[in-house]
């Protein structure tokens, strides 16, 4: 599906995400989870090489990022970008554009959902002055205002304190209730547990999909660490 320097980074990805489904992707560091997210979003350098990528019945493999976004796909980066000089309110409004003009109430609600005080943040810049955690929350708030059909969240829990894990779970559920499907890359059992379905990723392949608790239990207890093994991925499943 996607190769780099002759090496395939994604190889056997067979993944289905249902309507308003929360789907976790679990896997070790380097398994290819972010690469999968970038390929779905169509980022530069992550073009789809073979196979199909069907969204709402349409092959989107050749579409640009913008076109995919306008069909309702969006991505929250594991490490969000900084935008010097761009105010939080303007950033949140950009994603919302597809739904008409955003109201002040909607802006405030989105920030409250990620546990940021609107009066403190709306007029600040999404730049250097914010901590990594704050930017991460704002990134998630921008997904809320966009109301996508498919939200791809790359480790929304990393870089945010454990206390707010509950809030992330609540947020993912709120996205679902507002009509989004959520593909969430995570290391946290709590998030997996709140999912409808989970998939285990290993060396660029989805090894199995199914019940989230079962998948996360398998990952924790029966998956041989990638670095202690030389044989192909299927060997990991003995």
């Amino acid at each position: 599906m996607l190769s780099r320097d002759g090496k395939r980074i994604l190889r056997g990805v067979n993944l289905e995400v249902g309507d308003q489904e929360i789907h976790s992707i679990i896997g070790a560091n380097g398994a290819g989870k972010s690469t999968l997210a970038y390929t779905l979003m169509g980022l530069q350098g992550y073009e789809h090489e073979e196979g199909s990528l069907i969204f709402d019945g349409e092959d989107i493999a050749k579409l640009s990022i913008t076109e995919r976004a306008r069909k309702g796909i969006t991505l929250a980066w594991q490490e969000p970008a900084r935008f010097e000089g761009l105010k939080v309110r303007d950033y949140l409004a950009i994603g919302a554009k597809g739904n008409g003009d955003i109201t002040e109430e909607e802006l405030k609600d989105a920030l409250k959902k990620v546990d940021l005080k609107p009066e403190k943040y709306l007029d600040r810049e999404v730049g250097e002055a914010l901590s990594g955690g704050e930017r991460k929350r704002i990134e998630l708030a921008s997904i809320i205002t966009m109301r996508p059909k498919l939200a791809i969240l790359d480790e929304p829990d990393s870089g945010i304190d454990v206390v707010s894990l509950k809030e992330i779970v609540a947020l993912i559920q709120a996205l679902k209730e507002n009509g989004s499907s959520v593909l969430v890359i995570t290391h946290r059992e709590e998030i997996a547990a709140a999912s409808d379905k989970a998939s285990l990723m290993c060396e660029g392949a989805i090894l199995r999909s199914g019940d989230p608790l079962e998948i996360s239990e398998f990952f924790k207890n029966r998956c041989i660490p990638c670095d202690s093994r030389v044989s192909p991925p299927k060997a990991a499943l003995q």
Partner: protein
Amino acid sequence: MTQITISTLSSEIEDMDAAYSAAGGDAAILHKHELASLVISGSKVLNANGTEGIVLETQETEHGVDVKMIIKKGYKIPLPVHLCFGLIPEDGLQEIKMNFVAEEDSAVELIAHCTFPNAMKVIHRMDAQMVIGKNASLKYTETHFHGPHGGIEVIPKANIKIEEGGSYYTNFSLVSGRVGYLEFDYTVEAKKDAVCELVTKVYGKKDDKIKILEKVSLNGENARSVIKSRLAITDDAVSEFRGITEGRAPRARGHVDCMEVIQGNAKAEAIPIVRVDNPLAKVTHEAAIGCVDKKEVETLMARGLEEDDAIDIIVKGMLA
């Protein structure tokens, strides 16, 4: 209290008002008598209105105006003073000589708009001598508008002396329309406990040429400065930035920060120069030239923007 109002042909005033608005100013402000203001069109003074605590003298010369402005000792001017310099015709030369003194313990904010909306063959020179007295403060924001043709040379030169405990903040911005040729040359000498911040923001397009030279000498103990430059250039524009900071006294602190974004065939050069001859002084610098950050562009695209609109928002943010 000095109150000078010189009236001329009203159509010229109207033209300047329009030009002032084009540069982002609110023209109504220029006609309020309770606000100090100065309006110069070509070599004509259209309006010079000082208020209490401000001495404002003007002298028309062959190609411009000599201006003397003094903020009297102890006066903290409550409202900003508005300045407007410009030239309406397509061609011409304007030379402004500015002699500015903020006396001890005074404070003032100057908001300047320099506007050349029709420039095809215009030269504008500004030669400023500024003294910020002991514990005085000057905040100076200067917004330029050079019109859409790029037929202009703008050469602002300033020499600024900041006395003990004084502070000087300046923000030069030229981000809409063309630049033409810009040669910006500011030199600052800062005494003990003086504070200085020089910010320049310029957006160059087509065959615009931008030269920025800023030099700060931290001559007094504990003097502090920041030189911050944000440049975006595209098409065939070129830019050259030199930010020099000298730390010459104990606990002097300086920083030079230049960030440039280039697109198309644009070429940029940035040279931060740091000189320190006092072991207790510290001067740091950073300079980055590159294309627009890919992750920023892709993030905005993933929110539904076209690539060009995403780049536009990012560059405007940087120059805001």
